[in-house]
């Protein structure tokens, strides 16, 4: 006899497990199916392990700069990669236990194994040759994504890997080639450099952090270059070959780069193959399951959330979508519309929400831009973190806040407020009129908002080109 549930969730990442908790909170009987450890990419191969490693790397970075702060560290600050790794593993274990506890407390049944669809309302769970069946009124797909690999490249695991492997490398490389200057590439570059690795980043597009504010990406690239990270943008790798003790890359500009380890960070692809979608007539578009704002797929009673629907490959987007899907699956009207902030945990950090200047202009929106450098900010200087700036994008005609982009110390903690203001469609004047605590990094948001209105007080007066009017 198959067990029946109101809701079955396939995948226990930050989308799936949140959807399961929400469905249970709304009173449904819920099953969740996961083949790997709970927490999905975010907890096991993404957000959390990378932050744990970055925290160690940032501490090392501070130790290198301790003398500037009047702290004399005796020579001999060494990196113990094995200990860094085991501390990270402990963090992951704690959080996995936490998710298990949360699911248990809400009486969500956990099925371990690979879940796939087996016709309308039917799910098969396969583990170690055994299969179980369960049925459900509604199914929420949350299969997530996996790192892209480059077809035709060598696969020697001791030399070449994706973030899945690199986060758990047993040893540190000496010379690391990072293919792709996106969020993952930048975080690894920053982390590895601080831990003493010689890093080269090769990005095909004209800037690192493509899709983010170009000035911000350029400034971060400059900071990285100052630390000795070699960044090559607008550059293609023509060929990668294995050699003694590592690999050699031939670049489009004729240069060759020798390294002992390669991290491929060129993006992620949906993990939707072989999950029985054809049994319910569910189709994919380049692997992604297209959904509407209610997270409904083209097939009745099947929802898809997170990376697999291709809307936004971020953990917090997946969680928000999970809540939306669970609510709709249980008859509560819900739509996923809120702006999704981006956060990059390099040091200095990068965060943004809403439109960039480039995106707004491309959409034909007349914008004005306000900018405030952190080097003018008391808190930033006090913390020896004057690098970076905040940029506010404003609709010139309606005064609406369109986007906030931040580069600097702790800015990932400041972006939530900007996201809330954006979601509430605040005007830039309202942001400028809001009182921010002093001294904080977030004050720069207010200052940049004032600058967007050409009424900043902590900046020199804006240059005004004075012209005599025409007369008719």
């Amino acid at each position, binding site marked *: 006899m198959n067990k029946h549930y109101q809701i079955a969730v396939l995948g226990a990442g930050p989308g799936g497990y949140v959807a399961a908790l929400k469905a249970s909170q709304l009173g449904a009987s819920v099953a969740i199916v996961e083949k790997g450890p709970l927490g999905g990419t975010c907890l096991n191969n993404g957000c959390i392990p990378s932050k744990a490693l970055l925290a160690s790397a940032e501490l090392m970075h501070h130790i290198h700069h301790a003398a500037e702060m009047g702290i004399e560290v005796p020579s001999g600050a060494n990196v113990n990669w094995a200990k860094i790794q085991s501390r990270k593993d402990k963090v992951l274990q704690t959080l996995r236990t936490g998710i298990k506890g949360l699911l248990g407390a809400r009486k969500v049944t956990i099925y371990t194994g690979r879940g796939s669809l087996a016709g309308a309302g039917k799910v098969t769970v396969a583990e170690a040759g055994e299969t179980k069946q369960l049925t459900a009124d509604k199914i929420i797909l949350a299969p997530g994504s996996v790192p892209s690999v480059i077809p035709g490249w060598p696969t020697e695991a001791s030399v070449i890997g994706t973030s899945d492997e690199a986060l758990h490398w047993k040893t540190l490389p000496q010379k690391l080639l990072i293919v792709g200057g996106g969020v993952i590439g930048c975080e690894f570059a920053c982390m590895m450099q601080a831990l003493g690795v010689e890093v080269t980043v090769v990005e095909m597009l004209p800037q690192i952090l493509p899709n983010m504010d170009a000035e911000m990406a350029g400034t971060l690239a400059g900071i990285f270059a100052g630390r000795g990270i070699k960044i090559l943008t607008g550059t293609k790798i023509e060929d990668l070959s294995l050699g003694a003790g590592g690999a050699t890359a031939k670049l489009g500009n004729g240069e060759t780069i020798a390294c002992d380890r390669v991290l491929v960070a060129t993006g992620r692809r949906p993990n939707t193959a072989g999950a029985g979608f054809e049994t319910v007539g569910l189709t994919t578009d380049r692997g992604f399951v297209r959904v509407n704002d209610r997270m409904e797929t083209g097939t009745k009673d099947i929802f898809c959330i997170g990376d697999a629907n291709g809307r936004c490959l971020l953990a917090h987007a997946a969680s928000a979508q999970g809540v939306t899907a669970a609510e709709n699956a249980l008859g509560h009207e819900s739509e996923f519309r809120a702006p999704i902030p981006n956060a990059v945990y390099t040091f200095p950090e990068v965060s943004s929400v809403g439109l960039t200047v480039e995106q707004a*202009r491309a959409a034909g929106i*007349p914008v*004005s831009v306000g900018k405030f450098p952190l080097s003018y900010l008391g808190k930033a200087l006090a913390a020896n973190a004057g690098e970076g700036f905040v940029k506010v994008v404003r609709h*010139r*005609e*309606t*005064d*609406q806040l369109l986007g906030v982009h931040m580069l600097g110390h702790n800015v990932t903690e400041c972006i939530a407020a900007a996201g809330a203001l954006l979601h*509430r*469609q*605040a*005007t830039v004047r*309202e942001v400028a*009129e809001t009182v921010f605590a002093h001294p904080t990094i977030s004050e720069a948001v207010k200052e940049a908002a004032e600058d967007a*209105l*050409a009424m900043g007080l902590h900046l020199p007066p*804006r*240059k*005004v*080109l*004075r*012209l*005599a*009017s*025409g*007369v*008719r």
Partner: protein
Amino acid sequence: MNMATLTLPKSGASAASATVLRWFRKVGDSVKKGELLLEAETDAGLIGVESAVEGILRENLAPVGKTMNPGDALAVIDPLGSIGETVPQQLITLEGKSVTKKKAPGGKVIPILMPKAGQSMEEGVIVKWHVSPGAQVTKGTVIFEIETDKATIEIEATDSGRLARIVVPDGGSSVVLKPVAYLAEKDEDVDAYIAEEGDGGAPVEAGVDVPQAVATGLDRDGRTIAPAVTTETGRVKASPAARKFAAERGIDLASIGAGSGPEGRILSTDVPKQAPGRPVGSSSLQTGLPAGVVVNRMSNMRKAIARNLTLSKTTIPHWYLRSCVNAGELMSFYRSQKARIGCSVNDVIVMACARAIMEFPLMHSRVDGESIIQFSGANIGIAVGMDDGLVVPVLMHAEKLTLADLAMETKRLASQARAGKIENMGMGVFTISNLGMYGVEDFVAIVNPPEAAILAVGAVHEAVVVKDGAMRPGQQLNLTLSADHRLIDGTLGAQFMARLKAILENPSQLIS
């Protein structure tokens, strides 16, 4: 005198557009040559535009937020208005707008235009014409009433003459500043005039004067409401959240009035929880209606009823008392008096109420804010049902009238009301609503604000009357008093009802 129009200069080599960020001068200010008028934003940065002319700023043609190209008009400057000299503000608005001087083929024709009452008004509905074609109108008399989305406004003629033709009849609507009628000696002149004007789009002539009340609007008590603050482009100033709530709740932002935000901006907290007279979410009612439904615009009377009764039910703490009157004596008294003076049962009840009311000062009082206003007499409203609603004319000093006078006066008030004239409106302290003639035994009425109580009168009906332990057939009358608890407490209400019951059960005292 030649007005100078200032235009947006070209900034640098590019002909990029600029969005106005702020003005440094307002209409009416004097400006010197070279003085900074405004700042505007271009993709390349800020530009400051200086006045190329000295004079008085007469018109601002580029409101904040407007994007313009080089050469576009920014402002009108009156170079003759030298500093220190005061020039009447209307100078510009009157200029070149007189239609009467227009050469028309044939005799003089004056179009009467739908006035633009308030910045947001785009269209008006003519509720009623007060004059008929052919009549002579004199300047200053009310010639028609219009209804906008905010108010009903009486429109006075600004010219005298013969009303030759009405082109927008009662109930018709017209966009603002379009002719609704024509003044002319001969009808043919109107034909010729219309033929020449084409679509009738006459140049703007101040054909009608909008009374000042229009611009501000009057609330139901005649107090003025501050108008909603609008930007120079006519958009009501409101926060995005307020806009969202207003849209969700089906509320016109302009109807809210000035908000509590900076410069009168409407904030989300200023948006009422629900639209007046509508359940929450009814804004979507008009979508998804089944075939065959008819959507009609509410009449003014319906709107007034909706407004008043919603106000009453939502702001007056109603409470209710029910009394059952043994109506045997009442009916024999009524029959004897009907034969004598032709009164109705209701007249007897009105008279009884008037007597009872005068015995309790708070029963002829009402609440006004934090004051209690005591009236000298029992001014009783008589609810008069009509085809499209109900009205409540008021019988003044009912306590002083004999039953015969009361019956006659009530009849007169009701027939006047049905003819459209509601006497002594707003002077009442108490209303009587009687549905007995429809066989209704019992109902509960809503207090008619600003009064403090209303009596719902049911039908006199046959019932088993228990008296001294014995059941016998008899007649009963159910009365339900709805009272404003801010004024009328339990004891008072009960005492009043007991007194009323006593009078009705022994009605001969009414004529003694």
